[in-house]
């Protein structure tokens, strides 16, 4: 603990990050607080990222690591598109991220990620941990608020929900997590990915 007091960068910021698949797409959400221990470093941290026009990612962990990781994945996704002449699939984008995470296994990038998006096979979502394990899922939560958010998701998730129902569910899960996890708060960023593209939204609370 005294080490952490001396070196503020030794802290790992908390977060609540959620991803849910629905009928027409995927919603990714992350709250905006960046905390260093008891100190709120920023009220405007952005933890959701666009990867391609139809794929996004939402992260929890060290902000530097998630930014670096996402820039790399974005670059590889662009190279893939130019090489293959078609956009990268959600699974392939998640696999690229998984490989990058595993390749730094001995000095890990400290970030958990939810990759979600739409491709020829429809909407899908993958969860990755710091070492790059790749798990497909219908809904997921990562970060310090994950346990609280997951309770709400578990209770409220149903197959074939529409966009409004899913967004309401995600907001409810976020509100629960934010009100009981001291390292989460200051509003939520959304990435709503449908056939029409990616819509970015922000909600203060």
């Amino acid at each position, binding site marked *: 603990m005294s080490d952490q007091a001396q070196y503020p960068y030794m802290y790992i910021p908390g977060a609540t990050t959620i991803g849910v698949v629905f009928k027409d797409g995927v919603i990714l959400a992350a709250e905006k607080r960046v905390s260093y221990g008891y100190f709120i470093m920023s009220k405007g941290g952005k933890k959701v990222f666009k990867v391609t026009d139809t794929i996004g990612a939402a992260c929890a962990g060290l902000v530097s690591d998630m930014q670096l990781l996402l820039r790399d994945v974005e670059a590889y996704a662009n190279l*893939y598109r130019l*090489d*293959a*002449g*078609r956009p*990268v*699939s959600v*699974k*392939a984008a998640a*696999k*690229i991220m998984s*490989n990058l995470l595993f390749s730094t296994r001995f000095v890990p990038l400290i970030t958990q990620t939810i990759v979600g998006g739409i491709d*020829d096979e429809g909407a899908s979502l993958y969860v990755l941990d710091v070492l790059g394990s790749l798990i497909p899922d219908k809904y997921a939560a990562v970060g310090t608020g994950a346990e609280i958010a997951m309770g709400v998701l578990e209770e409220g998730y149903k197959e074939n929900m529409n966009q409004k129902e899913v967004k309401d569910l995600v907001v409810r899960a976020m509100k629960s997590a934010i009100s009981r996890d001291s390292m989460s708060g200051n509003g939520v960023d959304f990435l709503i990915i449908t056939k029409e593209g990616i819509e970015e939204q922000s909600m203060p609370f």
Partner: protein
Amino acid sequence: MSIFAAPGAYDRAITVFSPDGRLFQVEYALETVNRGATIVGIASADGIVLGAEEKIESKLQDPQFTWKIFEVDSHLGAAVVGLGSDARILIDQARVYAQSNRLMYDEPIDVEIITKRVGDIKQLYTQHAGVRPFGVSIIFGGVDKTGSRIFSTDPSGSYRAYKAIAVGIGRETVENILKEEYKENMTLEELIKLCTKCLVKSLEARNEAPRIKLAVIPAATKKLKMLTDEEIDKYMKQI
């Protein structure tokens, strides 16, 4: 100027252009390919067929043995024409690319991408000093995310997409048949028959005994299957 670079000697090293902009060694490699025993690739929405003439040199040769059609990955095959030994090197490398694509992206490699990778290797051998070009053309056929695809590379490393193509000594004969009879909505069974016919006619035109090998990849299964000699005999009898 050294005495070795005599005027007009533009075919001694492949890295040297002739004054009219040609790379003779690459053209000679193409000649090897154009004189090789014919290979054919045909695609429709139903799948793809690869076919090759395989002349037996000795009565004691194992008739089962195939050396012009290869499985590169389960969804992807290749037929080669030209120097068989050069071809094996490229096929070995193509197999590595196919597996590495699965490791990198968790996806079977696209037919176009593998063709491009092999084309990249061929191109290097038209530009580096101290090497000669690969005397091989390869038809890659497979079923990937984009559908049933046929691509072909020549010794220069360039590649193109085809609905149907033949390379080798029987090219003209076969392409006349293909232009006449190929339709985009053919069933796999019809593709096999057409491919068999092309190869048999091209061998007949040169008064050679018909001996052919065929591989198919149905779009339904995306799995390459080499046809047995019995199955091929059956199709040959139907012509």
